[in-house]
């Protein structure tokens, strides 16, 4: 049952990164567009994301619940030492969520739209950076777990773990990844005249992701981050990354031809591969602290709890996944009819 729970945890994480990631990315694409394109993007984003965006963001709640129910001590370390970046992520999620709704449901469309738009774009950009920094912090090896909290300074305990070069680059990498996902998604959704905009954007985003990924690696090498050596030593992780790197070529070609479905599939596969590689390289030591690592399996709750959690996840999954599939399908199906 433990593995069922871990499976759901991994799936939720992947889906959150892809679905919410594309959603954050849409705001980033909007932020880095010319005025006119901004309005076009705004409309397309609303049409595409509107029905599903709320559901996309629930994955993080599922992740959270699985962690605190199933792996309480693991969760405890996260919320204790990464309190600040998590709070910043929450601030971003809040501002972004309300801005998204306000700008579409405000009864009058007047100057206040400008405010909502900027709130939406900026928080779309900043939130994934902090989210990425939080992930980075788990692997950067700066978390200190002291015997007595008083023995360390505030900076060392609560700031250094996430405010360091490695984490910052992971944050930027994640933001670039989001923009990449979004622009690919938009290629498929935009009308024919607008499609070239997103083809151009996807190319820029692809290059940015590659540069950022490279910088993350450079940084881990220079500062001897343990994540890198684990990564390099793990043949599965390396294979996965290699496959995903090779996929870039057909992807770029497919972007050039403005193909919808293949582009999307390549992108999805690529991102999933990179994420799985990063997870596999560390698994099961998913947090690296300054002098040890935390094995997620060892922090698991008692069997009875895990069993009940696993069963609830399976039952919940059976209800939700078909519903979700239907939701996604319905609104895409409709588009085909409209054409």
């Amino acid at each position: 049952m433990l593995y069922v729970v871990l499976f759901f945890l991994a799936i939720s994480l992947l889906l959150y990164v892809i679905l919410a990631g594309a959603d954050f990315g849409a705001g980033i694409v909007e932020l880095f567009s010319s005025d006119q394109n901004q309005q076009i993007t705004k409309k397309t984003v609303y049409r595409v994301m509107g029905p599903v965006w709320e559901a996309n963001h629930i994955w993080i709640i599922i992740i959270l619940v699985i962690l605190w129910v199933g792996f309480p001590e693991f969760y405890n370390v996260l919320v204790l030492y990464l309190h600040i970046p998590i709070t910043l992520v929450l601030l971003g999620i809040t501002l972004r969520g309300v801005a998204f709704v306000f700008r579409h449901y405000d009864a009058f469309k007047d100057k206040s739209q400008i405010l909502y738009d900027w709130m939406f774009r900026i928080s779309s950009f900043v939130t994934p950076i902090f989210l990425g920094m939080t992930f980075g912090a788990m692997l950067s090896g700066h978390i200190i777990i002291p015997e007595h909290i008083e023995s360390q300074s505030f900076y060392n305990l609560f700031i250094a773990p996430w405010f360091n070069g490695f984490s910052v680059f992971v944050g930027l990498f994640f933001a670039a990844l989001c923009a990449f996902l979004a622009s690919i998604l938009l290629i498929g959704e935009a009308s024919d005249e607008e499609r070239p905009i997103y083809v151009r954007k996807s190319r820029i985003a692809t290059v940015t992701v590659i540069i950022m990924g490279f910088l993350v690696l450079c940084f881990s090498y220079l500062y001897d981050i343990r994540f890198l050596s684990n990564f390099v030593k793990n043949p599965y992780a390396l294979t996965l990354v290699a496959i995903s790197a090779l996929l870039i070529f057909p992807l770029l070609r497919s972007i050039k031809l403005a193909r919808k479905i293949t582009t999307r599939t390549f992108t999805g596969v690529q991102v999933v591969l990179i994420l799985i590689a990063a997870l596999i390289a560390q698994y099961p030591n998913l947090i690296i602290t300054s002098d040890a690592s935390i094995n997620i399996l060892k922090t698991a709750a008692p069997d009875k709890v895990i069993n009940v959690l696993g069963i609830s996840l399976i039952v919940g999954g059976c209800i939700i996944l078909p519903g979700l599939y239907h939701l996604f399908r319905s609104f895409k199906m409709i588009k085909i009819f409209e054409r």
Partner: protein
Amino acid sequence: MDNLDAARLQMAFTLIFHIVFACIGMVMPFFMVVAHKKWLNTKNPIYLTLTKSWQKGVAIFFVTGAVSGTALSFELGLLWPEFMKHAGPIIGMPFSLEGAAFFVEAIALGFYLYGWNRLPKKFHWFTGIIVGIAGVASGILVVSANGWMNAPSGFDYVNGEFLNIDPIKALFNPGWFTQALHMTLAAFTATGFAVAGVHAFQVYKKKHKELHMKAFKIALTFGALAAILQPISGDISAKDIAKRQPVKLAAMEAHYHTQKGAPLYIGGIVDNENQTVSYKIEIPKALSFLAFGDFDAEVKGLNDFPEDVRPKNIALVHYAFQIMVGIGSLLLIVGLLFFISFKKQIWWQKKWFWILFAVLAPTGFIALEAGWIVTEVGRQPWIIHNIMKTKDAVTPMPGMVYSFYMYIVLYTVLTVAVTWLMTRQIKFLNNSKTV
């Protein structure tokens, strides 16, 4: 302000904010589907306008509820890591089921909001019902988690360790049913009166009267029904508390000295130092009766509990309880009045009728917040009743005050923004005379 106080205030403040949006987001879909059904049946376009405008309200409230709820689920861990480390696995059941309920709700809402003219009519309407049912389910589940904190069960507590965890027993803890029943009714009462009040005010101002009258009737039918049932459920809660958390009961009544045939105090000013309540109205033997159904039963006073298990702020608990019960009684009467008004339709022509309901708009929510203050402050100093103290659960990270200030600013701005948006919705509605 020390760290513990800041964390407690932050928790309280964010919950007080979330509950308003969550309640509206959970109850308004019911109003919306009734209006929608009436449109389907009568084809009266006013109902369509109403449904669409309530739908916008639902969307705005839903999202504000959802983001503040997301913040809350993190906060449980961020503020009370020790609590979550031990309690997380035990009360995982309600929270994981709640996650499922949120999902169902979000999916159904996606269908509902974007399904106009795209989905089959009946199915579209039905997805609105699912939104409401899933919302109520998530409310019940989270309150069950709170019930567990008041009435912990489903584990053995041996030498500071939680052994033999039984998540299902924890879900159905002794507190869950009374609390969930009372809370669900409260949500309907509060939202019903608030929405009806807003529309009553528009009727009073003679703006688009036909529409606002219809809206008023739908909302208040729910609100008044719930308000009539509320005192019964409150009485069940009080009897429950008398058994399970006698300290809380004593604090609610500012009842300092153990007494047989204890009187019930209405109002009064609490002097905690001298342990007296002045300027009160005293109803002899009523407290004994309310708590135990027996006029001569003995009610234990605060003095007979050790100092360190008594809530500190007796006065707050007492006043909050008075406010809740006072408003509860008032809304019961007004609720009955509303049903009588169907026989005496002449009242609907009178100004006082509409002013009355406009003035009552906020009272349901005031009672609801007051009730939570009774429950939560009355539970102090325990975070898990008789097991773990709040001060042992708080995060060791210093500087919680800043986080508290941040939330104050953020949520104050959001409150203002949402209120402003709602006034704009109404303005828009009043201008849409055409339909």
